[in-house]
């Protein structure tokens, strides 16, 4: 029997090339920037965008959130959530800072470990994050408690550990070789802070990992249909441990960067960062029900958060109003995006 004997079940008129889903969220970003530009000329009499310093600071401000958001995006794609990122940032910042103090500090946390190579401080910060993330992963994979609860527990405990570590005292006077991580470089006349570079490198690595590796394919599969993933031979528990461990590692990295930028470690660092990171991922098109999301979207979502903060400050909007409006814009952006996606599904 030849192929053309089978009647085609539906008459195919033609298939359109789909635009990548980030296009609409990029349009939102551009729209917001243009609104600030116009308001800038009207209210302050100055350009919002034509200012290299400002553009650089926009990304610098959100680069730590962005690093976390890259990890959280992967967690959300598996239909999970990570509420512990902010606390892990605080704990990692404390641990890293305690190993990066100079001997000038008479009350160093570890007097015998001052002036050591900053590598140890960085590794310790990353290790704390990896450990916290792995614990999250193990709890979720082995005890089957919901990710919301497991990471909520970690959120509370890690914050407690960060405070207990120095009994609430900040860790100050960090070595220059460590705080160097928070510095800026001039690249072709453009001031590029190291945290921004780290953020972008992390984003590129995980964009590739999600799109082109087995790790990425399995991450989407688990979020899209865990039962089908299991029958396809995917070890769901093992994979979730990896995903949460990576999210924790990235929170640890964010903690190290935070300590380096502030040249100190404080137990209150990173409070509510997890919410900004989740917001960035969701604005960027990651679906909380799992199976959908891309790092490019999350990067744009992160930048939208930065543009909002910077734009409001530029327009001299009061801090309280900023938060009120920011909350509304986050919700509005997601409504617009969802509406567009529904239209795409129907159209």
């Amino acid at each position, binding site marked *: 029997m030849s192929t053309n004997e089978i*009647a085609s079940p539906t008459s195919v008129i*033609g298939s359109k090339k*789909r635009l990548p889903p980030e296009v609409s969220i990029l349009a939102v970003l551009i729209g917001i920037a243009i609104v600030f530009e116009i308001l800038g000329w009207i209210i302050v009499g100055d350009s919002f965008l034509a200012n290299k310093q400002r553009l650089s600071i926009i990304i610098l401000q959100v680069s730590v959130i962005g690093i976390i958001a890259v990890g959280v995006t992967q967690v959300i794609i598996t239909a999970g959530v990570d509420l512990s990122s902010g606390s892990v940032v605080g704990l990692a910042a404390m641990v890293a800072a305690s190993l990066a103090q100079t001997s000038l500090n008479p009350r160093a946390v570890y007097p015998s470990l001052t002036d050591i190579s900053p590598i140890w401080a960085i590794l310790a910060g990353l290790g704390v994050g990896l450990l916290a993330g792995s614990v999250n992963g193990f709890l979720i994979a082995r005890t089957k408690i919901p990710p919301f609860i497991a990471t909520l527990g970690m959120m509370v405990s890690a914050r407690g550990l960060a405070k207990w570590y120095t009994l609430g005292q900040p860790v100050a006077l960090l070595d220059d070789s460590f705080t160097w991580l928070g510095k800026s470089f001039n690249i072709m006349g453009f001031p590029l802070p190291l945290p921004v570079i780290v953020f972008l490198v992390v984003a590129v690595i995980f964009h590739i990992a999600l799109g082109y590796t*087995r790790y990425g394919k399995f991450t989407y599969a688990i979020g899209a249909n865990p039962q*089908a993933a299991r029958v396809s*031979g995917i070890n769901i528990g093992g994979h979730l441990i990896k995903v949460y461990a990576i999210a924790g590692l990235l929170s640890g990295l964010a903690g190290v960067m935070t300590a380096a930028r502030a040249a100190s470690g404080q137990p209150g660092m990173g409070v509510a960062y997890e919410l900004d990171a989740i917001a960035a991922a969701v604005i960027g098109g990651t679906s909380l029900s799992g199976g959908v999301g891309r790092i490019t979207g999350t990067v744009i979502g992160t930048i939208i958060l930065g543009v909002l903060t910077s734009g409001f400050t530029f327009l001299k909007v009061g801090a309280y109003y900023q938060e009120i409006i920011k909350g509304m814009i986050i919700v509005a952006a997601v409504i617009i995006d969802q509406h567009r996606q529904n239209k795409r599904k129907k159209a």
Partner: protein
Amino acid sequence: MQSPGMTEAARESGAAPAPDYLLEVADVRKEFPGVLALDNVQLRLKRGSVHALMGENGAGKSTLMKIVAGIYTPDSGTFKLRGKDIRLNGPLDALENGIAMIHQELNLMAPMTVAENIWIRREPTSRFGFVDHGEMRRKTVALFKRLNIDIDPDIEVGTLSVANRQMVEIAKAVSYESDVLIMDEPTSALTEREVDHLFTIIRTLREQGKGIIYITHKMNELFEIADEFSVFRDGKYIATKLSHEVTRDDIIRMMVGREITQMFPKEEVPIGEVVLSAKGLTLKGVFSDVSFDLRAGEILGIAGLVGSGRSNIAETIFGVTPATSGTIELFGKTVRVDSPSTAMSHGLAFLTEDRKETGCFLLLDIQENTQMAVLQSGYVKNGFVKQTQLSKDSKEISAALRVKTPDMAEPIINLSGGNQQKVLIGRWLLTKPKILILDEPTRGIDVGAKAEIHRLISKLAGQGVGVIMISSEMPEVLGMSDRIMVVHEGKVTGFLDRAEANQVKIMELASH
């Protein structure tokens, strides 16, 4: 007029003594992006009749029904309900106008009681505005009595069987005093006895003057329950006929537009060595002491009623629910199959019963769906997927299986059930299995695709693959299997060779 069937249908209805039409739909057109789903179709439903809709997957039956039930808005078309022109604004509007759809995927709220589910949004209230549970209960009992349904109104819907849930859905539809009831493959998850009960209820409804639109793929149901039927093909209306006027072959010809001669083309192939041997396999509380051998090139059919444990045996062999005792030997070696990935590493593949729940990644595209299982074992270098090679091979398999799609980047959710099934079969073929377990491989699939899948199974057996096939369809089991293992209440009740097997013997063993 594109079809001679239309004029025939018109002549027939003209001859009948002024039929009382409940619903008249004409010139309905509906286009989805890239697909013309309905091309000027029509349907006329008589009062007090059961009207079956027949057609292959993707013929447009479900789309038409969703339009009638107000779920989709048509691009054009005329609608007359009880002789009056009507335009529906959504499913609720349809329900209030007396058109109710009983969905394939049941739409009940599991944690709520039967009565609460039926009267939701219309709860009888007491003077103070509280829900009057006593009254609600009485109304439910009265309703169930009318329909001859025996279910406790206060029980949680979540604890009911699929069949009983369906009864509740039907009762709910009737409670709206609906005249038009649409049933989309209502028997697909029912046992034979439950089907009989359903048919009794349908006949009661027919006597009460309701019009029932009945979508089905099962030919014998058509002859048993339907008064007349309409056939659709490729989004076009083909014909409407009285069921007693036609033969099975006539209908297949109308549906497919060509002859299907050989329905179950199992070829004789040489049977090889034992590839799988189950010894005393037990899953506590589900099935016990299951022993059988499967040989290379053999198709072992597993027959049994729904709930007999046949699917559970398959799941245990594949490691989804590891056995509590007993052993599995694969190619002569005892293997502790504790997870699907263990099973896969020994060359097993498992097409599950439930396409939506355990098969498709509905959010992902055809390519991703096809490649997901093989990534365990191949096409990966240093963690990176060799996408070019994989895409090429996936495309070849899809083409060989005749998956109908413009391209592999199409979301799988846009495919018809039969094509989704082919994608899932392709997923497993890509892993080059040596033992293939198929659970209801052709459920909810049209005749044409069914024959293709049967041919494919036969071909795989010819290549030396050992096949275990579970099926509720007796002709399929009888036609395809070299040997049939019959399961009843978690126990193997007998084996039948191809030569000696027949429907009666299987039923005897299956019901003991």
